């Protein structure tokens, strides 16, 4: 019998890959998915409750066909209604913490927020009540905060009064932790690490349809900070809007998520970091680039976790000006 070493080698390599140890799936992720599956099962269950329980595969298939046809018709009608109203898409959200919070759908219905994954129509609002908290896609909303879901972006807007049990949010005048604040806390300076939301300092106005944070003024001439080998961007501290961002550690990797930026001046996202304790700033000492994205829809990046890591997400515009920046994110802090 002839031997074929190449095939044996290949099988051995495949067996080695199959035997590679892998990190254990995080229990909280298992739980979150199970929660999601239970809600899906309940939805499917309630959908099928109207039908009687037929016996036999043939009848089941007949009813199934009718249900599919009815579903398609309903979806078509819904699509016409949604076209008439505006956006038609849904956004998938992953809620990792939810307390005293609810989701208000565009049609006015309210769903209590639960940990897990949920698809919501664009235009839905996330409302956090008194004493509550909501962490969605790595972004934490605190008591009194309201966010609007739009095309994958989560736009925090505290200008509207929270309905129902929530307390009205303040106007966000306090605090100086946003990158647009004075002092050394902008993207070109040292940031803080408090958990106070800077959403109220978002300069989004109600007259603008764009759901994302955007700079109030992009006409000022910004100073330039450049260092060979580092990311070369122009800082514009006074004009920089706050970009909502969050970070978590998953199996030794840092997962960074941020809100989509919708401004027409968008040119890319830049995720920078330091591991020497200094604040990540464009062109700063020891700054490394974790990710650069030219697609505004790509609002997620990962990197190996290192102790003492400080991360900041920047939105870069024409002439490499910084349009928006996140607070300094410290994984695990």
């Amino acid at each position: 019998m002839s031997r074929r070493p190449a095939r044996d080698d290949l099988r051995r390599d495949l067996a080695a890959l199959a035997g590679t140890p892998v990190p254990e799936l995080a229990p909280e992720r298992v739980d979150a998915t199970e929660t999601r599956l239970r809600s899906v099962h309940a939805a499917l269950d309630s959908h099928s409750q109207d039908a009687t329980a037929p016996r036999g595969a043939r009848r089941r298939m007949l009813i199934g066909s009718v249900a599919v046809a009815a579903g398609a018709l309903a979806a078509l009608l819904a699509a016409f209604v949604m076209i008439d109203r505006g956006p038609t898409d849904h956004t998938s959200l992953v809620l990792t913490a939810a307390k005293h919070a609810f989701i208000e759908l565009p049609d006015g219905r309210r769903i209590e927020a639960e940990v897990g994954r949920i698809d919501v129509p664009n235009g839905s609002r996330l409302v956090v009540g008194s004493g509550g908290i909501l962490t969605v896609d790595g972004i934490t909303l605190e008591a009194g905060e309201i966010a609007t879901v739009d095309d994958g972006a989560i736009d925090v807007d505290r200008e509207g009064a929270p309905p129902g049990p929530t307390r009205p949010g303040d106007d966000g005048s306090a605090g100086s932790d946003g990158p647009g604040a004075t002092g050394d806390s902008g993207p070109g300076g040292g940031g803080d690490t408090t958990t106070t939301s800077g959403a109220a300092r978002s300069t989004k106005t109600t007259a603008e349809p764009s759901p994302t944070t955007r700079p109030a003024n992009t006409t000022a001439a910004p100073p330039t900070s450049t260092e060979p080998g580092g990311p070369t961007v122009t800082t514009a501290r006074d004009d920089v809007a706050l970009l909502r961002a969050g970070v978590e550690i998953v199996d030794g990797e840092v997962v960074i998520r941020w809100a989509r930026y919708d401004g027409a001046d968008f040119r890319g996202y830049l995720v920078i970091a330091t591991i020497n304790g200094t604040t990540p700033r464009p062109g700063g000492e020891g700054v490394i680039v974790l990710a650069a994205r030219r697609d505004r829809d790509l609002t997620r990046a990962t990197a190996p976790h290192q102790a003492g890591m400080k991360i900041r997400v920047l939105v870069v515009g024409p002439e490499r000006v910084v349009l928006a920046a996140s607070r300094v994110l410290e994984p695990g802090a």
Partner: protein
Amino acid sequence: MTEASRFDAPRPAPARVAKGPRWSDGSAPSDDRTLAELARDDVEAFATLYRRHVRDVHAFLVRRCGSVTLAEDVTAAAFERALRNLGSFRWRAGGFRAWVFRIALNELTDHHRSEQAARRRNERLAAHEPAVAPDPAADIADLVDRDACRDTELRAALDRLRPREQAAITLRYLAGLDHRAAAAAMGLPAPTFAVTLHRAMRALRAQLEDQQ
């Protein structure tokens, strides 16, 4: 024994399926086939299946794509798709496990397709836009971004195979399904699967030789 003492007696910790379906003797069904049948109407049965297989599916996906976080997302999506498609599940060789592995693989393929489409779109846009940042930044980012899922030569070679060939090899060798189960998962008769697997292995060898 009084009524009160019976209630006070220590009880074993309830299993996840405790709230679910029960046989007439009070025991809970535990085999995959029964649970899969019951899962259409009983969420506890599906939860039991999920808990039983989720870690294996996740490990399989990590080995296939090389990214822990991507594997987590795809695992969740795969079980949700499985739940939504339980009505189409028919017991075959390999059972629920093989079926959900196949769904997971399809989810991963879908993810890669949409990722490639986004990449092509970006490239088209980039051709009409000035560069955002100097090239060093983008180069570093490319090196750091581990979601690229190209950790090993073997994975890279697998990625270049046709989806059907990828499925045959990964289900047979990475998922650890036996011949009949892998064939059933792909919806192929065993002899057809054998031919597919043979050709897939030959194509994989050729890809690895090209890499070298």
